[in-house]
């Protein structure tokens, strides 16, 4: 079936699933999971090298094949997040960034004031800014106006696996912005990803749902199918919901069994 590509910062992607590199049981499992997910974009954190310098995560990621998406996880202010993006760019990780400005350690909910400020600055500096935000349509619009390349509302708290807690807000976000909408965080299993895509989202980003599954490689495949299935269902146009039954078989032509 005909479909458009996901466009971010002028680059086109066929896969609408973005996956992470954290919390895998081993680097080999991670590599296999990436393969099974069909992803084209992989998130990484930017951290101090452990000294003496040893094995690197990049030994397990084909950087010619995948686009790396550095995040600003762990940043609690716009200033820290902006500095992290500059470091990532200097490291050669490109100009596409998953922008996180965290407001609270317990919930990891975004600090949207800091997020908006950092988005504005980084967009002006030529970054392709992908902000992790609340499921708030007003903020989504503000982020778009500040120059965000997409908006990434959370489905539920990071790593919670609670799924899409407010599909109606996600729907309103989809109507509020023209940039791609990518659900980031909260996905627990395949149906959550499918729901996001059926709502009309342009993509889904996840880490823990795959990395933390008993069989991460199988879950990666499940997520690939769910994202594709959800997207197809969205494009196909679902039927309306009705309270009562509507017969699928003709009501005419029934044999007469009355005696």
């Amino acid at each position, binding site marked *: 079936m005909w479909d458009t590509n996901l466009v971010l910062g002028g680059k086109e992607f066929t896969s609408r699933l973005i996956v992470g590199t954290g919390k895998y049981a081993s680097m080999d499992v991670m590599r296999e999971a990436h393969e099974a997910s069909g992803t084209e974009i992989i998130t990484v*954190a930017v*951290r*101090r090298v452990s000294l003496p310098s040893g094995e*690197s995560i990049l030994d397990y990621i084909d950087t010619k094949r995948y686009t790396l998406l550095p995040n600003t996880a762990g940043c609690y202010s716009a200033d820290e997040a902006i500095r992290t993006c500059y470091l990532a760019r200097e490291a050669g*990780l490109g100009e596409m960034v998953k922008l996180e400005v965290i407001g609270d350690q317990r919930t990891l909910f975004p600090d949207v004031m800091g997020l908006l400020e950092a988005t504005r600055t980084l967009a002006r500096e030529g970054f392709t800014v992908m902000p992790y935000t609340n499921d708030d349509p007003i903020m989504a619009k503000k982020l778009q106006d500040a120059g965000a390349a997409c908006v990434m509302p959370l489905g539920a708290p990071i790593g919670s696996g609670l799924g899409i807690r407010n599909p109606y807000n996600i729907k309103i976000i989809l109507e509020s912005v023209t940039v791609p909408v990518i659900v980031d965080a909260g996905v627990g299993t395949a149906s959550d990803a499918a729901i996001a895509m059926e709502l009309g989202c342009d993509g889904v980003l996840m880490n823990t749902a795959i990395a933390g599954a008993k069989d991460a490689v199988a879950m990666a495949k499940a997520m690939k199918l769910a994202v594709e299935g959800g997207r197809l269902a969205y494009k196909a146009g679902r039927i309306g919901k009705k309270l009562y039954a509507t017969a699928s078989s003709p009501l005419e032509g029934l044999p007469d069994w009355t005696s």
Partner: protein
Amino acid sequence: MSVTINVNGKPMDVEPGLTVEGLLTLLNVKRDYTAVAVNREITPKATYAAVTLHEGDKVEIVRPMGGG
């Protein structure tokens, strides 16, 4: 005589006149996908050999790690 700098949060005694380039070689840090900041300012790769480290300098050396 040596100078004490701080590398990724840990104190380290180094020879006076050591450059960022020299430090990375000393620590055997891979250069690809690595970035360095000295005293909160990013050091461009092209200037590694020209930037000398001084007493009390705070050096951050970062690379991509696992994350979501």
